């Protein structure tokens, strides 16, 4: 494919995607104490989820009838036990696997699909643009939570159905950002120059448009991670998403609601992790935005 790239087109692309730029962004990000703190917290939670089998003191699905709802700080059960006598620390560690997956995978998929469709719509313009953008308007006419509940509710509970529902909900906003960024880039002189050197549409899209659009679209997508985490756990909380006995933070929050009166601290525990992850993603997205806008 690279044979179609003209000598003039190549350096233009190389300047935009050079590792120098991204390592500069990373350096700026690491100078911001808030972003570093968020990265550390997120890394700890992700590691906890990934290495749960080695870190967890017990089995996430095996409980004990005589050890139900032990308070936080019980010897042997550092964070207590849940309504079926299962170790909370174990379930919180394992719970991160499904919760983080359900929150991040839809954003990644929506970035891929929405980003591609948005670039095509912005670059093609005319009728193609109209069709894609009017379809997006329809999805935009739904409040995001409602659309997610509608799709997941009709499909039924299950992690796969939730992933699908959240991906569909997240595509329109990403698509709009990608489309408007592409429309702006398309009108610039260097696109004209690339065309004059004989680059075809696909090459221009892949090399020149992509490298200029991916930055803002990526930053925008990271700002959706927080919402996606809250929505994913929220769907499990209302009985969509993960099914018992799967350890998942939103589902744990729901099944522990009856314990709210006897063990309020225990019952609120899974939500602390959802909040921490969502807050860190939000602050990190802000940090990333300012780190990338400096240039």
């Amino acid at each position, binding site marked *: 494919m690279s044979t179609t790239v003209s000598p003039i087109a190549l350096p233009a692309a190389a300047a935009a995607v050079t590792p120098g730029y991204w390592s500069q962004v990373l350096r700026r990000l690491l100078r911001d104490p808030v972003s570093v703190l968020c990265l550390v917290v997120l890394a700890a939670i992700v590691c906890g989820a990934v290495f749960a089998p080695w870190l967890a003191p017990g089995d996430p699905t095996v409980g004990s009838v005589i050890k139900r709802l032990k308070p936080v700080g019980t010897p042997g059960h550092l964070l207590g036990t849940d309504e079926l006598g299962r170790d909370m620390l174990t379930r919180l560690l394992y719970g991160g696997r499904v919760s983080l997956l359900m929150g991040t995978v839809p954003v990644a998929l929506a970035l891929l699909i929405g980003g591609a469709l948005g670039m095509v719509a912005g670059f093609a313009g005319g009728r193609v643009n109209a069709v894609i953008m009017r379809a997006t308007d329809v999805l935009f006419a739904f*409040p995001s*939570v*409602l659309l997610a*509940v509608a799709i997941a*509710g*009709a499909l039924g509970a299950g992690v796969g159905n939730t992933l699908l529902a959240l991906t569909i909900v997240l595509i329109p906003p990403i698509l709009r950002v990608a489309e408007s960024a592409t429309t702006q880039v398309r009108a610039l002189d260097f696109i004209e120059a690339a065309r004059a050197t004989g680059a075809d549409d696909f090459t221009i899209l892949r090399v020149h448009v992509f490298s200029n659009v991916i930055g803002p679209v990526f930053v925008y997508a990271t700002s959706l991670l927080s919402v996606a985490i809250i929505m994913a756990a929220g769907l499990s909380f209302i009985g969509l998403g993960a099914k018992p006995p799967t350890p998942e933070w939103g589902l744990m929050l729901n099944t522990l609601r009856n314990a709210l009166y006897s063990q309020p601290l225990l019952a609120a525990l899974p939500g602390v992790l959802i*909040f921490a992850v969502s*807050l860190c993603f939000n602050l990190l997205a802000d940090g990333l935005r300012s780190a990338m806008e400096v240039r």
Partner: protein
Amino acid sequence: MFAYFLKRLAFVLPIALAVSALCFSLVYLAPGDPLSAVLPSDASQETIEQVKADYGLDRPIPVQYVIWLGKALQGDLGKSISNGRAVAAEIGNAIGNSLMLAVLAASLGFTLGALLGIVAGYAHGSWLDRLLSTVAIAGVSVPHYWLGIVLVAVFSVKLNMLPAMGNGPGGPWVWSWEHFSYLILPAVTLSAIPAGIVMRSVRALVADTLKSEFVTGLVAKGMGHATVFRHLARNIAPTALAVVGVQLGYLMAGSILVETVFAWPGTGLLLNNAIQQRDIPLLQGTILVLAMFFVLLNLIVDMLQPLFDPRIRRS
């Protein structure tokens, strides 16, 4: 002006139709055949035939959609599978409760967000600004269903000050302290997100407007803080109100999680019941009404904006 209204209306009608088509297709999204999705499993042969004829389920899908839409426009959204009652009546009973909660939460969120946003905007770049902005980020990052649980743990379980569940005795429109006390926790919970969003936009608006030339002009003319603020408020009010107007729609839809926490008998609880019972007609009807409410609300906000903001009128 009139042309602007017409243009908005022409834009909204196809959207509303497409939204209804999407809601219609939910029945087909559900696993199994659509008949089993809209009928209880113990329905008699007679009922099955009746529903088949009513909805034209033996006819092509576009025809089915037109029949369904016609019925929906006449206020017939089918029957709930779990209790056999008309879906439209169920929604009619619930929507007042949700609206009351959403309006209170939006007012609360707007007041809090606007106050904090003005302070942060005036103090742009200072430690106070950074502190308030962090609080606002926390407000939009908090899983509101969890915030509700925490508030119940503190104010109902520990302090025993406020009721944790339901909407209290009497109908939804009884005004007494006892009745009102049931509203407080769900409304405060629901207001966290609009407060954060309004705060962030008001902060940006105030900071930007303070830098504009007309403010410099006012100050140069020797006007006091109060007069300058009056001009400032007139400039940012339309945008801030539009933000909170759209938020009202998000609150109506997003309250499903908060209504579940507080067992608040609104549309969110209906949706929750529909999910638990796999009651597709109830799910479909409630989603349709809430989505149409959102479309209509956006239209109203768009139509009202030029009345308050002459800049839109001229553009």
